[in-house]
């Protein structure tokens, strides 16, 4: 087809893209509501998530049609005849009066969502430790430009430029705007500290599909967000039921187990890994733990001791309790324990996940609140 070129200049397509941009902006401003529905991890591969959205409407003044509409038609029939009944859904109706609601299935790149979500979040209580590096941006001088803030004017360079110009121009003015040179700043990554994240999931049989989904969504968002912000971050993935295992990342999100809950096994494994590999003098360490809050009563003492130890060795411990559906009235074993520790001033915090929205709130809760202190 020799008219293929035309599509490149299509006005309609350009305006359609602009419409989509506006939808995107609107989603961005209402991110948790818009993203609560879809399954972030298994939605459509690792790259993006698809969200069904309604089209925007360019409003105009129009008369209310609350009482129905009138119109002219053509065909047989007597006054009073029923042409279309609300109780029969015949698609073949000649009216075609509504074109049907078109919904837009818009794909958002995970990266993009993370950017929006993580704009103002950071790891809590991050301290400079050790030699290996987490990047933190710093502004350094790099090069010159003809434009810039006045305070960054480089007089020496400017004079040099003026001298060069005057050398080749007869009757040249002493200075022109073209001579001005300003020092430029660029952000350069600066290694500050190193960090390790522990993600720990309760995979006992009481963690049903809904619970696991909430927990994994939380881990997924936290992990990807933190990875984006701090490129060189170490991650360890642990799971426990009545005993504990370590996984690699891919298996971790698939993991499911059986049997009762012994939370202390998980914390013990975390502590072992921490001691073997990550010296607290050199490493910032964080633990994110998700569970439904049940734990064997005989395990209580061990868990308490381990948590207390961990909270002294680690920068921060976050706990999400997955209670899909109605929030429980009675406090769970683990929830109580966590709150007690938090009240004693240990760097621990907990949140309850009831539905998808809460995941975002929990992340904000952990990362913003702590960053402020």
């Amino acid at each position, binding site marked *: 087809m020799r*008219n293929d070129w*035309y*599509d490149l200049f*299509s*006005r*309609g*397509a*350009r*305006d*359609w*893209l*602009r*419409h989509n941009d*506006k*939808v995107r*902006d*609107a*989603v961005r*401003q*209402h991110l948790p509501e*818009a993203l609560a529905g879809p399954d972030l991890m298994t939605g459509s591969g690792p790259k993006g998530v698809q969200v069904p959205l*309604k089209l*925007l*409407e*360019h*409003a*105009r*003044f*129009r*008369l*209310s*049609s*609350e*009482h*129905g*509409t*009138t*119109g*002219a*038609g*053509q*065909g*047989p*029939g*007597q*006054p*009073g*005849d*029923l*042409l*279309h*009944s*609300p109780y029969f859904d015949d698609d*073949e109706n*000649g*009216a*075609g*009066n509504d*074109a049907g609601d*078109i919904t837009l299935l818009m794909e958002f790149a995970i990266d993009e969502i993370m950017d929006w979500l993580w704009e103002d979040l950071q790891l809590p209580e991050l301290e400079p430790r050790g030699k290996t590096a987490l990047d933190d941006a710093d502004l350094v001088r790099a090069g010159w430009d003809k434009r810039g803030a006045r305070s960054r004017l480089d007089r020496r360079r400017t004079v040099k430029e003026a001298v060069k110009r005057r050398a080749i121009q007869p009757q040249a003015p002493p200075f022109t705007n073209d001579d001005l040179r300003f020092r430029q700043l660029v952000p350069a990554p600066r290694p500050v500290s190193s960090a390790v994240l522990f993600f720990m999931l309760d995979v006992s049989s009481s963690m049903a599909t809904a619970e696991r989904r909430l927990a994994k969504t939380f881990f997924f968002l936290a992990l990807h967000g933190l990875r984006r912000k701090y490129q060189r971050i170490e991650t360890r993935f642990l799971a426990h039921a009545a005993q504990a295992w370590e996984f690699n990342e891919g298996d971790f999100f698939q993991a499911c187990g059986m049997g009762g809950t012994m939370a202390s096994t998980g914390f013990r494994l975390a502590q072992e890994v921490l001691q073997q590999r990550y010296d607290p003098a050199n490493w910032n360490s964080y633990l994110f733990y998700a569970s439904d809050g049940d734990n064997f009563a005989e395990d209580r003492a061990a868990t308490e001791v381990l948590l207390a130890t961990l909270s002294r060795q680690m920068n921060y411990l976050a706990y999400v309790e997955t209670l899909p559906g109605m929030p429980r009235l009675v406090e769970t074993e683990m929830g109580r324990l966590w709150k007690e520790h938090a009240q004693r001033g240990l760097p621990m915090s907990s949140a309850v996940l009831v539905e998808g929205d809460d995941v975002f709130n929990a992340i904000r809760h952990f990362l913003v609140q702590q960053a402020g202190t």
Partner: protein
Amino acid sequence: MNLDDYTARLHALAAELGLDYYPVDFELVPQNFMLEIAVYGMPVRMHHWSFGLRYIHQLLHQKMGHSRIFEVMFAGDPCHAYMMERNSLAENALVTAHVIGHADFAKRNALFSRFMGMAGGHILEQSAARAHQLEEALLRHGQQAVESVLDAALALEPHIDVHQPLYRLPYPDRPSKSALPDGDPFQQRYKTLPGECPSLPSVPQRHRIPPYPEQDLLWFIARHAPELQDWERDIFLAVREESYYFFPVHACQIMNEGWASYWHARLLREADFLPPELYLQALRTHSDVVRPYGNERQLALAINPYHLGFAIWEDIIERDGLEAARRICAEEDDFGFIRNHLTARLAEQLELFSFQARADGETRVTSRDIHDVHEAILGPKYNYGVPCILAECMNDDFSLVLRHDHARDGRGLDLAPAAQVLEYVVRVWRRPVMLHTVDFRGTPRTLQTTQSDAVRTSARPA
């Protein structure tokens, strides 16, 4: 013979039959371009996201085979006609004849001539030039700024006063006083009657803007918005001028399509140079275009303007002859055309009826009375098809008061979109804007927007 030959011979035949029109530029364009012309209303028009929305709707419609656009014609001097290059030769021969019919109509009809007299015969070029200016404004002022002006201007697009000229004068400085303030002998005598107190020195009437409720909202905002920049005013006036151009197209749609259909049928019938098989194909297309029902069922809840117009013109010409039809063509618009020439007999023959559809979808035939049918056909065309909103007054703090003339429209406004439109408007008016109307129950409602509300995003995800 190819299309060019047919076109030349059709022109000759049209001249023989007494058709009179400005020259027509025909152009064969790809399907997508055709689609965009239909969506934007112009081949090159300003960008706005709402067009993108219509574009996608139209694209889906076309993909589903609901509609197909054969031609779009723009009246002017010369006229421009765009035809789909994928049409068959027979279809394009038919379309050519159809366009000649439109061109004849546009030159004859008084409403078309009046608006062409005001806007000039070069609307396409002007519109393209303005689109270009807007691109420049976009670079200079940023997308947000341009878009918020366009949001308001396009939302108010049909709110013009077609009885005023396109280039209208500002309001008179002072309300003109009655010619003789005191000099009228009768007044003098009246004042000297016993018991009459001397008239108070008349307080100079405060200068009201607008002096009377103003219907042309686009003009009023362009002229009187307190902080409107020049480039923003240009956008309002551009939208207004295009709106003036579209008005006759809107107000004469049934007549115009009917007239063009009558002439394409007649020109092809009398074109003895067309090979018979081509004529047969064209005839099949013709009957597709002017059939009343969109699908197999023998019932339509909408009127096909091609079909209705064609039937009325045939009826007129059969009864009163071509000269009478040409006179009607010159003098009427759809209102006169339907009311005077859609007779009870014809309506019965065409099985026209009026219906009412309740909000839950229950639809019943209401009447076959000819007056009801007239009103049902013309109802959506009153006042350019939009509610009658008037700019009532501008307060001392420059806040704007709009009033919806609900008595005239017989119904209240749909409040949610109205509030949204006010948000568009307040961003260019830059002072509080309020609107008096009634809701669907008839309870008076006042919508009010101040600028801080409008800072919010123009859209929420559903």
